[in-house]
């Protein structure tokens, strides 16, 4: 049976996500990627499961946060692989969900 792991950014990380890098302030995309997203993704990859990321409940998102967190994931593991193992949920903001998927697809992380 495949594992389904859920991360709620607002509940498990911060309800006020910040910008791209740690140097930009607290709750950055870099911090989220390194401490939550990457370890959770590696876990589901190992167990052959699916990672569900819930975007609801936060104040809102800076595009730099999304670009760093999901762009880094896509860059490290490959867009197709990530898209097949990750599910993005957002009932509050459909456009942010589309932006995350677009970021993964386009491997949008800026150097």
């Amino acid at each position, binding site marked *: 049976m495949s594992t389904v792991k859920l991360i709620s950014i607002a509940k498990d990380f911060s309800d006020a996500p910040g910008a791209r890098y740690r140097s*930009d*302030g607290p709750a950055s995309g870099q911090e989220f990627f390194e401490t939550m997203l990457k370890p959770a993704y590696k876990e589901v990859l190992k167990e052959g499961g699916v990672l569900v990321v819930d975007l609801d409940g936060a*104040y809102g*998102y800076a*595009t730099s946060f999304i670009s760093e967190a999901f762009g880094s994931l896509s860059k490290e593991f490959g867009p197709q692989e990530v898209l097949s193992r990750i599910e993005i949920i957002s009932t509050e903001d459909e*456009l942010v969900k589309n932006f995350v998927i677009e970021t993964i697809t386009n491997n949008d992380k800026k150097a």
Partner: protein
Amino acid sequence: MNNTLSIVTGVLGFFLGLIVVRVPYLKLDSAVNIIDLANLVALIVFTIVIPVILTSRLDNKKNHKELLILEVTVLCESLFSINESIVKMNDNALTREQFNSIVNLFKRANSHMSQISEEVSSIGDEKSIEKCKNFQERLKTYWETVTGDDGIKVENFIINAGFIWKQSKRYDDLVRAARSLKFEINRIV
């Protein structure tokens, strides 16, 4: 609409039946009277039922258009408050609360944009759909300009004239796209 038509037709039929039964000079005993009766029904349909249906349909469409234009206007007001708050912060360091407030305004704007997009698609007018897509794309560009790599940070970010000019330019593009969408919605017959 079909229900209204059925009720009107039913009531009309009932009264015509009563007239035929009660009034002696409307006895249906010849072909000429049936034709007269058909003319009477046609007259009532053309003078009352069809205008009522048409007016009702046009009113619904007009209301839908007006509501949609109003929704775009409300969204523009929300975007105006983002632009205005950034302009007012000229030469000041952004606080955590201000950062949260701006990203929250974008979240609400995005959510509103999705609803508008759905409603425009439901109308099915190709030009309006195209203008709506353009408006949505401009909103995304504005969001990326304000909160992207050259945009706001939680700490150590001073809002300078360069940033204000850059974001204002994107905001103006967005407002132009909104105006164009409203014009296109208003044009729908």
